Each structure stands twice: as structure tokens, then as C-alpha cells.
């Protein structure tokens, strides 16, 4: 370590008792709600909260609670062998709900694979969401129907698709040909994690976005861990500072504060809508669970660190404020709990009932127009399998 480079072995053994989530150069994130559940005043951001109705405030809570319930159920389904994999969003509910609630439902979102709260907010059902994790299909929803692209697992690839979509928006406006099913004032949100900011595509996307002044909001959820590697291996400075290098504004926000997340995303999306060009949010949050159900966080991070962040739980913080500010009473929380108990049971039933895609359908969607090799192989498989069916029939007759 004498040359200042992190030695892999040393950094793992050094994990215990060390808080990896403190970065060397701190930029204070925007925070409106303190971990104790007190609302702070902020000249720029508070007005965005002031205009929220009590109903809207409760809705934010609803989606956060829904995600957490879904997450617990999905984790247990995976443990029981009913899902191939699950990537929990536990702890990131405020970052996601605050951000998606601040943009318009007509804005296109390009998620990674952990934006479950955002997906739910866009009306994607739990079983649609879990389809790819049950591996019955690669995706469970129609991106156009929800203005929410399918999950992308090859990290940061979707940030370029988001930039391309935004180039399309600009060209539509230039040529006065915004499609009838798209909004005139559409902007795009590109989601990305702290680890994926190291990918070349993230860089290229930001270069394109800056060059063409695209209506694009980068939403980095810095959950502090890229599987087992801490954020400081991805970046020695706060990720928010990357925006400056590309020539646009970035804002660091407390991602465990749903109100700050909402306010910052409202402000920046409004600016983008008004023609500012791209903006970036670094949402500082914490992956309270494992990377996926195949991961074991005890190997690389300390229980002290996990405890520290448990104290910053986004849902507990928000619930405490909703109560104390008189926006929700115990009756409301009891109702939400009951509702999601039902949701979990329904979800379990519908997930177990998911039918696998027919392999014929996989053949049929490799191309949108006929392809000789695909057709030949599809026909071969049909004949081959029909042979087994005949054998079985013959065996049955003989028996």
C-alpha cells in the first residue's frame, strides 16, 4: 500500500471495523429531512416540498413500503428456489421513489437492474418485475407502456441508449415531428450505479449528452458497494464531480431522504425541460442488503458499517416525519402494512404461476424478418421433438 494503490487483499482484510462509505473529499449532500426525522429549510429545494399535498406525501411512503415488502418476498422466493436470482433494492427506496415521483410519467427512464421501486411507481406489476429473475422470460413488461425500458445487465450500456433516445427527442422537436404518443416536453432519465460509472459507456454517454446538449438526467445511485468493491475504488473524488468535467451541473443528494431526492430531481428535471442540457444527480444511499442473493457481504464489509446505515434507514426516517408533521396517522401505516401483506401473497401466487416462454417464441424473435438459419433450426427442433412424442405414443399403445 506504500505506493498509494489499493492492494486487494489488504483492502478486504481492512474492511472490518472500517467505514468504507466515508469518502476522502466530501461534498455535503442536499438533505431536507435529518436522520432524526426533522425537516430542514433550504432556499432552493424546500419550495418543491411545500407544494406537495399530504396525499402525495403518503403516496411516496406507499411506494417505498411496497418496494421493501416486494424485496423481502422476492428474497424469500429466491431462497426457496423459485427465482434464479434476486437483486435487492433494500435501502434505496427513498432515492428511487423520490426521483421517479419528481419527473413526469411521460419521461422515458432507462434503468439498470435494481430500480424496483421506480418500476413499481411506473405501474409495472410485481410479477412483471420478477419475470426476468424467475428466468421464464428475459423481460416482463412493455417499455413503451410504462415509459420504462427493460432492465439492462451489461453495466452502463443503457446510458448510451438513453443518450440516443434523447438525440431522437431533439430531432423530433427540430423537425416538428414529436410522435403522437410522446410528450412535447419529454426528458430522459439514465440510471446508473456507482460501480458502473467506471464503465467506458458511462463516459461516452456523458460526452454525447454534453456535446449535443441533450435533455438527459443521469441518476447515479451511489450505494457504496459494487458487489464487494467500495466506491472509492471507482472514484477517489465524489462521483458528482464527474459532471463538471463534462461541462454540466451535478448535485449530490442524500439518497436516504425521499424529500431531498424529490426536490433535487424536481429542480434538475425542470431545468432540463427548460433547455439546460444534461444534469447529473449523485444520490448517496446504501445497499442494505446483499448485491444479489448469490452474494455474501460479511466477507467484505463490517457489521458496524451496516449498523451505521441501519440508523439512516430511509423508510423509518420518513415515517417518523410523516407522523410528527401530521401527514399520516397510525391508521394509515396499519392500512399500508395490511395491503402489502396481501400484495406479497398475491405476488407469490402469480410468480409461481408464470409460464416459461415457448422456445418457438425465442426463435421467432431473434429477428423481426425471416432468417434462413433460424427457420431451419426451428423446424429441425420441431421434428426432433415430435419424434419423442411418437415414441411415447407407440410405447403407450404397446403397453
Amino acid at each position, binding site marked *: 500500500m506504500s505506493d498509494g494503490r489499493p492492494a486487494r487483499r489488504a483492502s478486504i482484510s481492512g474492511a472490518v471495523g472500517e467505514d468504507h462509505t466515508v469518502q476522502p473529499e466530501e461534498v455535503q449532500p442536499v438533505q431536507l429531512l435529518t436522520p432524526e426525522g426533522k425537516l430542514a429549510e433550504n432556499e432552493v429545494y424546500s419550495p418543491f416540498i411545500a407544494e406537495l399535498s399530504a396525499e402525495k406525501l403518503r403516496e411516496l411512503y406507499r411506494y417505498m413500503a411496497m418496494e421493501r415488502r416486494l424485496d423481502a418476498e422476492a428474497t424469500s422466493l429466491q431462497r426457496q428456489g423459485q427465482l434464479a436470482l434476486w437483486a435487492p433494492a433494500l435501502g434505496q427506496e427513498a432515492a428511487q421513489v423520490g426521483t421517479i415521483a419528481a419527473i413526469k410519467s411521460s419521461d422515458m427512464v432507462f434503468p439498470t437492474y435494481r430500480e424496483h421501486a421506480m418500476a413499481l411507481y411506473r405501474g409495472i406489476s410485481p410479477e412483471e418485475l420478477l419475470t426476468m429473475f424467475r428466468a421464464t*422470460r*428475459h*423481460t416482463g413488461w*412493455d*417499455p*413503451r407502456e410504462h415509459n420504462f*425500458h*427493460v432492465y*439492462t445487465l*451489461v453495466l452502463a*450500456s443503457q*446510458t*448510451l*441508449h*438513453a*443518450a*440516443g*433516445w*434523447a*438525440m*431522437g*427527442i*431533439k*430531432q*423530433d422537436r*427540430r*423537425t416538428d*415531428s414529436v*410522435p403522437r404518443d410522446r410528450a412535447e416536453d419529454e426528458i430522459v432519465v439514465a440510471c446508473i450505479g456507482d460501480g458502473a460509472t467506471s464503465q*467506458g*459507456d458511462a463516459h*461516452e*454517454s456523458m*460526452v*454525447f449528452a454534453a*456535446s449535443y446538449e441533450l435533455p438527459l438526467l443521469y441518476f447515479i445511485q451511489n450505494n457504496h458497494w459494487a458487489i464487494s468493491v467500495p466506491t472509492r475504488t471507482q472514484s477517489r473524488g465524489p462521483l458528482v464531480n464527474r459532471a463538471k468535467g463534462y461541462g454540466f451541473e451535478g448535485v449530490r443528494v442524500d439518497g436516504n431522504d425521499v424529500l431531498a431526492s424529490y426536490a433535487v430531481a424536481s429542480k434538475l428535471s425542470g431545468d432540463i425541460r427548460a433547455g439546460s442540457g444534461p444534469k447529473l444527480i449523485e444520490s448517496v444511499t446504501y445497499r442494505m442488503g446483499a448485491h444479489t442473493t448469490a452474494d455474501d457481504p460479511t466477507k467484505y464489509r463490517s457489521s458496524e458499517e451496516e449498523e451505521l446505515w441501519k440508523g439512516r434507514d430511509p423508510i423509518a426516517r420518513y415515517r417518523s416525519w410523516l407522523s410528527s408533521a401530521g401527514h399520516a396517522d397510525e391508521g394509515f401505516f396499519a392500512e399500508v402494512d395490511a395491503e402489502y401483506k396481501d400484495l406479497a401473497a398475491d405476488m407469490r401466487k402469480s410468480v409461481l404461476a408464470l409460464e416459461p*416462454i415457448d422456445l418457438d*417464441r*425465442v426463435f*421467432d*424473435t*431473434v*429477428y*423481426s*424478418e425471416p*432468417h*434462413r*438459419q*433460424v427457420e431451419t433450426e426451428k423446424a429441425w427442433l420441431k421434428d426432433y421433438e415430435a419424434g419423442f412424442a411418437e415414441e411415447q405414443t407407440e410405447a403407450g399403445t404397446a403397453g
Partner: protein
Amino acid sequence: MSAIKEMVMAKAITAALRDELAADQKTLLIGEDIGALGGVFRVTEGLQAEFGPHRVIDSPLAESGIVGTSIGMAMRGYRPVAEIQFDGFVFPAFNQITTQLAKMHNRTDGRVKVPVTIRLPYGGHIGSIEHHSESPEALFAHTAGLRILAPSNPQDAYWMTRQAIVSDDPVIILEPKRRYWLKGKVDLDNPAPDAFRAQVLREGTDATIATYGPLVPVALAAAEAARAESRSIEVVDIRSISPLDDETIARSAAKTQRLIVAHEAPTFGGIGGEIAARVAERAHHRLLAPVLRVGGFHMPYPPSAQEHRYLPDIDRMLEAVDRSFSYQRSA
């Protein structure tokens, strides 16, 4: 006005791009230096002046970005035609092409179409430095979801480019850069045969040479040279690598009973091996000799001072024809 024009392949592609830009507002070009400069091979010359910088887009110097944003534009309803400057520089975009572009339609259960065309100047014999002469077609042919075309003459280049752009699937067009200045007639009114089928360019009876792109003129010349030795060689222009028209190739092989497949790409793991296997399956009993391959060696493309020894030429093709005739019919 006669619609048959004599033009070089590069300009036939320019004409195809111009005609598609004019036909559909949603068609866009994107790539490095394709605007004011007209591309390093001048294939897009004049198009930015004609259609504006927002339809003929000079991109940042980032190939993954070019393909990745093309995917996003295609999702939005555009038909982007992306130019990659040289074969050897397609690899920074390899992830976007293989994991995203190729799979998008399939992984979205057919809901999202990505009609992106990638123009890829490819192949050697231009005396250039490294990374400027490669033939990466097998890497892309192995990826389901992509269509791959390789025109060998101006007429095909014009019509294949147009067919690629209007196709709802992603298409890579391998433009044989050593043939950019090859002249030929282009019939602007009457389309060339279906881009995704092979074509018999020269009829023969004794052996078939099947090839595509830059080696088609070499195969035709080899066939002409063989005539002097009283051998009648059939030449099949494969034209489409994915889908592969194995039917047309196998029919020719069954007829002449001898097949040689040639390409500039290395033979090891190449398209020639795939064709050999398919023809063996379809026409084994008709063949008098194993299918023989003529191609590059299992080495990185050599310094161009040695490319004449690396690239298949007339003699290498004729040697393979001789070798094919050296096999005796077994009892």
C-alpha cells in the same frame, strides 16, 4: 432519363444513402468525420451539406457511443446508419453490437425493434498500417440477431445498402474498401436480387468457387484463368453471410461436385468452415473432393508489406482448384 449509371462502389453507396435520406425523414447518418469531410473514404461526401448536420451527424470519437446512441435513436423511431471508420476500430463497439443491438428484439419479446445499419469498411490490400485491413465477419456472424451483408460490386452495394436501411433488423454491411473504386453499372430502377440470397455470377461445370466481397473479382479472374486450362469454374457470390444462403451454394457444389470457399478472413474458425460443414451435410454424396478453404492465416493481420503473401489471390484459388482435382473418387 436512363436510370442505369456507371459508378464506382463508393459512389453507389453514397447514392443509396442519399436516396434513403430523401425517402425517409427518420433515416439519419452518424459517424466520425462523415460531415464536412465526407468520411475518410468520402462515401458520405456532400450529404451533410444536402441534409444538414442533424441528419448527417458528426459524432464524438467513440465507437461504442456511435452504436449505443444509434440503438437509442432506433428505439425512438429513427433508422440510424452508423459508419465505423475502419474494421479494426469496430471493437470498442463490440459490446453494444453483440449484447445490446443483436439481442434487443429478442430480449424484449419482439416489442422493441432496432433498425440500425452499421457500415463497416473492411478487408485488406490497401497497403495500410495495422488495424486498417481486417475481416471480422465471423465474430459477428456467430452472433444471433445480426444480419451481415458483403457486396462485391456497385449494383449490389447500392441495393444492399438500401435494403439494409429499410430492414427492421440490425444489419452490418461489410464494404470491401479495396473495391471502393471499382466501376460498374448501377440500375437505379431495377433492384438487384434479394440482398440475403447468394448469386451465381459465372456458370461452370467442373468446380465452384464461392466467395464474397473483395475476393469476388479475384474468383472471376481465377475462373477465367482456369478456362485456359480447359477447366470450367462456377463462381458464386455469397453476398449475405447472415443469413447464409447455403441452399444456393450447395446446389452449385452438387452440380460441379467440387467446392472451394475463399475469404480474406483467417480460415480457422471462419465462415468457410461453416459453409464446408453445411455443404457436406447437404451434398456429401455428390462431392468428389472435400470442400477446400482459401483464406488468411491464423495470425493478426500482417504488416501490409507482407499482405500479398497473406491474402488469397488468383494463384491461391487455382492451387485449391488443382488440389480439389487431385482427390480421386473412391470405389
